[in-house]
């Protein structure tokens, strides 16, 4: 170990951080180099001087100043917390109404969809049943001819019944409307569905108005 390496290891030597081999080399150099020995002694005395420096204590008013500042910061925070709490209470009073309205609107929309689809589905079911039935029909030539003749007979009887209906219409003071016609309104939407749709629009409008009032 040379003097430069010795000086680089003085600090670790004093703090007991040298490994066995380096410490041995350090000690060996120490034995033979008086200059490095002086450096080691001066470093030890310097550290001892640092450790023996006059005891310094914190000023008497330091703690009080800190606590005073913390308490002063706490007051605005407390007011802010109270304000946040009031706002939360306010919003919690309004929120259930909005929530209820939203849920009601969703139920109405779903109900409308179900009703519309039910009718459609029902219609599809009937068509499906007819298709199923027709699938079972005999499509042989004789069967087709037989069906055609039956259809022609049906047509004639329908013409006769139609005539009867016409008489009924001209004789009666009152108009009679078939059940199918009674259920339909313009645009092909039934009365019941209109009611549901209008209720849904009404609920959504209420929500919008409530939201506007809340913002103002």
């Amino acid at each position, binding site marked *: 170990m040379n*003097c*430069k390496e010795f*000086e*680089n*290891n*003085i*600090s*670790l030597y004093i*703090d007991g*951080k040298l490994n066995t081999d380096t410490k041995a080399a350090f000690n060996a150099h120490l034995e033979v180099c*008086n*200059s490095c020995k*002086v*450096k080691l*002694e*001066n*470093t030890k*005395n*310097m*550290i*001892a*001087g*640092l*450790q*023996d*420096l*006059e005891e*310094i*204590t*914190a*000023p008497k008013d*330091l*703690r009080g*100043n*800190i*606590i005073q*500042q*913390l*308490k002063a910061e*706490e007051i605005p925070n407390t007011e802010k917390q109270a304000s946040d709490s009031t706002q939360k209470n306010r919003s919690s009073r309004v929120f259930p109404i909005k929530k209820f309205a939203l849920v009601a609107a969703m139920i109405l929309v779903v109900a409308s969809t179900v009703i519309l689809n039910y009718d459609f589905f029902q219609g599809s079911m009937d068509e499906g049943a007819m298709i199923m039935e027709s699938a079972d029909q005999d499509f042989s030539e004789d069967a087709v001819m037989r069906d055609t003749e039956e259809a022609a007979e049906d047509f004639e009887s329908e013409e006769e019944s139609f005539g009867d209906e016409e008489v009924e219409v001209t004789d009666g003071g009152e108009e009679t409307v078939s059940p199918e016609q009674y259920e339909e309104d313009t645009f092909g939407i039934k009365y019941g569905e209109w009611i549901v749709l209008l209720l849904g629009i009404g609920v959504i409008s209420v929500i919008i108005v409530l939201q506007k009032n809340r913002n103002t």
Partner: protein
Amino acid sequence: MNVEETKLIEQSQLGNIESFEKLIIRYQDQAYRTAYRILGNPEDAKDATQESFIKIYRSLKGFKLQSNFSTWMYRIIHNTCLDMIRKRKRRQEIPIEIKEHQNKDDYKIPLEDPKDGPEALLDYHQLKEQVESEILKLPVEYRGVIILRDIEGLSYQEIAEALEISEGTVKSRLNRGRTQLRQHLAELLEDG
């Protein structure tokens, strides 16, 4: 950290200022002393210590109870002192060079070559008289590790945690800082 101290910290985390006051009583001397040795004057040291305890209180909720409170406190004190030095940019009674750098571990300080010729054996009492003022001449990175090791008695690991540097960097800065301080003292006392 003992049980009593843990309880004080827990209560302080819940906003109990009286408990935090007891923590201040425990640590205010160490905190102030460290700030005083880094900054070199009592007014700055008092400001830095006050500011540090306020920061500690505000960030207590993030403190993990398994950690060492005093190490954390030293970190905040040290960083507050560095911020104060940078902000005020003032010259100390004895001129100090403040070197700013991004990554503390990458900071390279050129190793001073040992003086040629033998060094005189210095008297302990002479050393003690001068060391307090001479330490303020050191770069702040050396000053910090010497104060924490030789005055506050922290271990290498604790210093590394407090200053958020590696233990290798602690060893390196401590060795260079002590060497530089010793050489300054030797020159001063030999000339005097």
